[in-house]
């Protein structure tokens, strides 16, 4: 089975890595296996190959050969720009990197960190995680859209996707950043229709993300700080609540406030909460083992919700 393209790319990489001086195109066409056809065809082939290798992150240096042929350009790959140089790294740090690389459960973050780890393991230093006394942790894999969003972000290409908020609508967004916060991934970016910076929860992106426009179709403002956005939309005041909780019940609530005995069946607890919605869900979890005493608005909300269940 032959795979001329891959074979030629490998031979080109090896030749450019091995040479100590710049190789001219003519020399490449004559010596590197795989270049054939008319001069124009080889020229086109070489241009594509260079782009392909660059897309793999391989830097091809272009330089003037010497003063003999002033305008003749040559090519080479500097081994130090090609090869992994991890600098001074301790075995313990390598072990930490190894644990970090294993921590994503799936998806593009897992794939990239695994390939990073393979490269580290190709350095010939043994990696021993035994001494770290760390448990292996697994972090959630981001949504399938993560890969496309990341790509759009890196290339600053405007993105389009269907987003389900109060309505399901197509959104056109210049991505400024991605962040993981309280267990969910968010995209922050400039929304073309709304004409302002918006936050999108990745799990609410439906189907595929498409890119529109060319690379560099927008610029991320230099003063953009993603942490200003994810925390802002959740800021709310703390409220105080007073509840009755049945003795030996509502175990999870007990550590969150100050508990005092009420009578032989009930204790009283005072605690604070941020979001009424989340707090309601938490209280109703305990059903008849919890009764709200204060504030009145919370009592009304509890009664309203229970009436809804019964209707």
């Amino acid at each position, binding site marked *: 089975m032959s795979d001329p393209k891959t074979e030629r*790319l490998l031979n080109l990489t090896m030749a450019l890595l091995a040479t100590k001086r710049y190789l001219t195109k003519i020399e490449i066409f004559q010596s590197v296996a795989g270049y054939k056809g008319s001069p124009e065809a080889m020229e086109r082939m070489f241009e594509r190959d260079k782009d392909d290798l660059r897309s793999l*992150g391989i830097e091809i240096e272009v330089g003037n050969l010497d003063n003999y042929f002033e305008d003749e350009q040559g090519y080479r790959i500097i081994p130090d720009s090609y090869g992994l140089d991890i600098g001074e790294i301790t075995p313990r740090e390598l072990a930490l990197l190894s644990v970090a690389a294993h921590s994503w459960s799936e998806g593009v973050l897992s794939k990239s960190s695994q390939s990073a780890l393979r490269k580290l393991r190709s350095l010939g230093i043994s990696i021993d995680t035994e001494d770290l006394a760390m448990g292996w942790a697994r972090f959630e894999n981001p949504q399938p859209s993560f890969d496309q969003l990341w790509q759009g972000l890196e290339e600053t290409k405007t993105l389009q996707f269907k987003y389900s908020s109060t309505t399901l609508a197509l959104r056109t967004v210049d991505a400024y950043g*991605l962040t993981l916060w309280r267990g969910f991934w968010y995209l922050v970016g400039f929304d073309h229709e709304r004409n302002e910076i918006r936050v999108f929860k990745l799990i609410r992106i439906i189907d595929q993300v498409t890119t529109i426009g060319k690379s560099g179709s927008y610029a991320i403002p230099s003063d953009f700080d993603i942490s200003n956005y994810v925390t802002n939309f959740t800021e709310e005041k703390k409220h105080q609540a007073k509840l009755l909780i049945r003795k030996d019940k509502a175990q999870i609530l007990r550590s969150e406030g100050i508990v005092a005995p009420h009578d032989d069946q009930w204790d009283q607890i005072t605690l604070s909460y941020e979001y009424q919605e989340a707090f309601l869900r938490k209280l109703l979890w305990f059903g008849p083992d919890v*009764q709200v005493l204060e504030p009145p608005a919370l009592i009304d909300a509890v009664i309203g*919700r229970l009436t809804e269940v019964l209707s």
Partner: protein
Amino acid sequence: MNESALDRTARALDLIPFVLENPGLSIEELAQEFATSPKEITKDLNLLFVCGLPGYTPLELIDLSFESGSVSVIEPQSLDRPRKLNRREVISLILGLEGLATLRAEGDQLRFEILRLRDSLITTIETANLQIATHEEFLPPSPFLQVIEEAISGRTVLDLEYLSGNRDERSERRVTPAQLYTENGFIYLIGYCFKSGADRTFRLDRIVKCARSSEPISAPNTPPNDSQPGTYKALAEEPILEIAHRAKNFLEENAAVLTILSTSPDFTLAQISILDPEWLIRSALGLGGAVSVRSPATLKSQIRDRAQETLDRYNSNSV
């Protein structure tokens, strides 16, 4: 552009330095390592076998041996070094380190080391602005993390005091911890629970006490008893739920156990796969009318009864 040719080129370039430092692996082991099939690895090796430096005599070709079942590199030519890490690889490592750091409390020595390593990785990429970050509130830290981690790596047993959400009770569990994972912003421990005789998950923020067990590890010699708390039987009939559009959070948080049956402008109809009906009864009260059970009927009436009983607290003058 032929994408698969590029993928193969990248893998082939990485394969040579990897095998050079890790000789003697089988084609199957390499396939696993490179997350591909043995067939693709064989193709890669056959291809590398005919590649080399200009001249292309046996002296200039890459030399490999893999007929005997284990792969080794005899002559790598100019491919002896692994390629440098690309931006994505570095960022993935940085994010993984940040995740590990946020599991640890401020002042923890390991946290300090992890963050220092992250900072030195950041200096290796061109633009310091990653545009992709974890937030400090990535996960809540747990005071028991260290003892749990030590137990996982040392394969020892822990005695937990645990607040069970579904049963609303405090129980003592002896557990052989296996792994930590995160979901919906919480850290969970999965491990073998001696009381249940099976693997169980525990939310770290609900562990109230955690200590290394004084007793040596011994496998449970009695078979698990189904009547014990924490042992569930799968429901005979999987509940079907009507989930209103406004209960989006419920859909998202439980995506793993929900099978969407249909979607209408008003609600999503989904089947939920749960082990303990108590979980659904308790959740349903808090969700009000936004999530309602369509079937089975017994579950439906259990929820109504519980709601009525709770409401009665506010109608009577029992305070």
